[in-house]
């Protein structure tokens, strides 16, 4: 049984988490769930294919892979299909979402859910204030 954690680019969907922060999140998750981590994979920045993870998996045959979030899964449909094909026996853990599972159904659901969140509109909290937020709430409901 070999467990790996994976750090990626700082931009993770809506989140911005430096790699040492990612490590803290994953290691805390592993500790809380009695998972012993043996392998740490640093994916390169500006890459969202988890290709390094796949190469390492060919050599080390991971049983568990811990990531911070579902947003770290490849975005491209073909890439995710390939990823799923090559990791169908691996149990994945997503620390921020607190979910785990393995196989095509689970990973496809994670991929789809990440897409829903990715497509959702966002309010930039740096560009608004409490008064404006209240106005947004009232206006949208009274339309």
């Amino acid at each position: 049984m070999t467990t790996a954690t994976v750090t990626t680019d700082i931009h993770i969907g809506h989140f911005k988490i430096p790699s040492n922060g990612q490590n803290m999140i994953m290691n805390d998750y592993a500790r809380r769930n009695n998972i012993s981590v043996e392998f740490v994979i640093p994916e390169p920045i500006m890459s969202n294919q988890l290709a390094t993870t796949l190469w390492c998996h060919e050599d080390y045959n991971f049983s568990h892979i811990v990531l911070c979030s579902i947003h770290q899964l490849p975005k491209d449909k073909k890439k995710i299909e390939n990823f799923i094909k090559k990791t169908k026996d691996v149990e994945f853990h997503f620390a921020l979402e607190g979910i785990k599972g393995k196989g095509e159904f689970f990973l496809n659901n994670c991929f789809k859910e990440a897409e829903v969140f990715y497509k959702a509109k966002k309010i930039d909290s740096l560009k608004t204030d409490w008064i404006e937020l209240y106005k947004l709430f009232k206006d949208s409901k009274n339309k």
Partner: protein
Amino acid sequence: MSIQEKIVNGPGYAIAPIDDLKCFEKLRDVITEKLQSNKSEIDINELRLKMTSMSKSEINNIMISLLSFNQASEIMLNSCKNIVKELAGDEVFVQRRANTIFNLPGKDQRRQWPHYELMSGISPFTYVIWAPFHDLDDKGGVFYINQTESFETIKKEHEQGLVNGPTILNKNYDEKPVKLKYGEVIIFSPFILHGNIDFNSNKARIACSIRFQSIDKPLMQKNSDFYKYYKINE
């Protein structure tokens, strides 16, 4: 007045009956069973009594352990299906981990100080549903400040450059917790100031809450860490 009308243009909160009480009962029983040492007989009042002798840290640990009960938010959502649909449609972002909240009677117990939900980073389009697991026949419930007064207080603090600061914390609230019956929920907007007060009883208060919003409305700081996508089926 519809629930939406009450929340947006009325007091900012509304009380409504649970749509599917059997479903909610299941949630109450699963949680009670998880916490009872004697699993053969599920009794919420026995659990409420037992909890009064627990320490603050024991209560806190229980609340944390229940966060891993992932299905709680779906059960809660399905218990209030029609309410959720009226407010947010049938495709929603719902809190991944429903909060089960325990409040102990007496002075100096852990309690929610006055706050409004928006301060946590949920979007202004979020609604909160809060439901007790038993009748609230003492002051163990939550008090809610009406929308006009809540917003005036938020505005006052905003002008001072503060968020949930002394104006809110030290305000002299007319503390009258809402006396809900088992089978009723309170739904409120994220702008409504609310909190708990000390109360006298021989039993703890146990309640459950979830936050949700339409997937068509923008998110703010809370994302997949807090919410999950959920489609309500008929």
